[in-house]
């Protein structure tokens, strides 16, 4: 992984400008942008695991856990504060990640993917069938919380939430990028290239992967609680396997070579979905599928890879 890509810094600045300026131009984009950023935070977690060559086809369980942490709080305790919700979402994602992680980090490749899928489907069926607590497939509505003690109008809330999400996304982006460039991050990549050699160095590959797994679960929980607040609902769909597939999709689309890929991928994904579903009512999924195939065949390093290649920089490695 290249240490610094100026072009990526430029892309980051463009992203910043977009988040600050676009909503002022078109209020309808506020929710869309917040959603992009929140999903990008989740996809950061997928990118972490992709460094180790592991594909989690069950990451939606942490996303769902974060969302339902918020929903349950609202339902059983009362409407709280957004910052509290975020803490709650991150902790529930992290705790679940630690418990599941202790099991799954013993496995690699297809077994890793399968176990993740199985755990996530267990959570999904519980959310779907424990009607008494979860309202089943209808999900739980999430009332508008205060943010840092301040109450907002519906419109003001969506702006405040966007900027809050943006702040978290930027922080997460830098932390994850630093993590990936740290010795721990390099060890994570060594799991992909040669795990046995890593162990000969006296490093526990399981522990390295567990750290990555818990970090990615925390990000999933954070993203889930943000999306629950943005869409004001949590449904079992949040934890369904197609959601997990969507996150992996976004990671490959954006490119797993750099943390910024998560947000590049989420931007394209959500914009295609938003505009395609508005223009071609029932074809957005087909279009996205087509985009994904083209990316896999022609640009396996994702959008970030394309960007880096154009500038003649060392291309980030494919997932």
């Amino acid at each position, binding site marked *: 992984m290249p240490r610094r890509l100026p072009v990526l810094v430029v892309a980051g600045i463009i992203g910043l400008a977009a988040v600050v300026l676009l909503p002022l131009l078109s209020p309808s984009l506020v929710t869309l942008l917040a959603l992009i950023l929140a999903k990008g935070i989740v996809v950061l977690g997928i990118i972490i695991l*992709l460094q180790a*060559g592991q*594909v989690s*086809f069950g990451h939606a369980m942490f996303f769902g856990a974060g969302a339902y942490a918020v929903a349950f709080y609202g339902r059983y305790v009362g409407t709280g504060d957004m910052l509290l919700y975020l803490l709650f979402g991150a902790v529930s994602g992290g705790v679940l990640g630690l418990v599941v992680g202790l*099991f799954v980090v*013993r*496995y*690699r*490749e*297809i*077994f890793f*993917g*399968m*176990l993740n*899928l*199985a*755990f996530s*489907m*267990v959570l999904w*069926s*519980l959310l*779907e*069938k*424990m*009607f008494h607590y979860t309202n089943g497939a209808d999900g739980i509505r999430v009332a508008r919380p205060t943010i840092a003690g301040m109450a907002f109008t519906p419109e003001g809330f969506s702006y405040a939430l966007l900027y809050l999400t943006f702040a978290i996304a930027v922080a997460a982006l830098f932390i994850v990028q630093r993590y990936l460039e740290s010795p721990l991050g390099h060890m994570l990549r060594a799991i992909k290239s040669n*795990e*046995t050699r890593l162990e000969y160095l006296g490093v526990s590959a399981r522990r390295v992967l567990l750290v990555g797994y818990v970090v990615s679960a925390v990000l999933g929980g954070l993203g889930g609680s943000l999306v629950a607040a943005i869409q004001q609902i949590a449904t079992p769909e949040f934890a369904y*396997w*197609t959601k997990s*597939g969507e996150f*992996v*999709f976004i990671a*490959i689309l954006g490119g797993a070579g750099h943390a910024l890929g998560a947000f590049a991928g989420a931007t394209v994904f959500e914009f295609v979905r938003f505009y395609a579903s508005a223009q071609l009512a*029932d*074809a*957005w*999924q*087909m279009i*996205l*599928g*087509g985009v*994904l*195939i083209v990316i*896999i*065949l022609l640009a*396996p390093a994702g959008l970030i890879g394309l960007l880096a290649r154009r500038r003649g920089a060392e291309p980030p490695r*494919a*997932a």
Partner: protein
Amino acid sequence: MNATIAVLAALDGISYAALVFLVSVGLSLIFGVMRIVNVAHGSLYAYGAYAAATIGLAVAPISPWLTYPGLLIAAIGVGAVIGGFLERFLLRLVYGRDEALQLLITFAVFMILDNLQRVIWGVQPIFAAVPLQLLPNISVLGVGYTSYQTLLLPGVAILTLVGLRYFLRRTLAGAVILAVTEDREAATAIGIDPHRVFLTTFILGAILAALGGALASPTTSLLPGIGTDMIVLSFAVAATAGLGQIEGAAVAALMIGLARALAIYTYPEFEVLVPYLIMVVVLLLRPQGLFGTARMRRI
């Protein structure tokens, strides 16, 4: 729980297991030979079901008995056309690439097929129970049940199991497939074309998925999402058995089918949970599945 319910649960479980077996053995076969997990496998199940229903509704006015060949034609047609196209024009481009990319390309296919399915057949439920109603009901230990589900479905499943075993162990084409599975390089060296083997295998697996769907179509209403649910379920069965295990898939399907049916009659809220719970427990204890053999650690 009284005896009637126990018999009912057993019959439900067996007929359900027969369908799940057909789908998951196809998934398992494809993985065993090609090392690809086909996420679009559930879509093939759904297309088989919808195609069978469409053909069935079209030919039923002529003679209801024509719906039976209709089931078979739907399965083979869907499997050969969609399966063949996928392998030849998509999967072939990603062999040897990163596992994540192979998995994801089938996910892309799933998204496209899922969308297309809603465009072609809409979102209203479709009923095509003619083949089910044609056969008489029979009584099993005093419990009335359709013979379509108690005899025909398990019969087809057993026939498939025996046929697959015979094909792979006793015929030349089967031996060629096994050779490529065991050692692709050596097989290529003695003049086997692995691409042809992959194409055959993928079409065979796809036909099995579509057959499962076609046979399921008379027993249930067709809705968007049947394929989405089936893929994870067949995945649970294949993984519980051990990916690539054919006889194992039959045992695992029976196990999961019966457990699920039992749950429906005792704790209905756990119905969907049961297959995944079994999968988690089995994978935790034996990651290679109940019948899989442990692989050497990669060095």
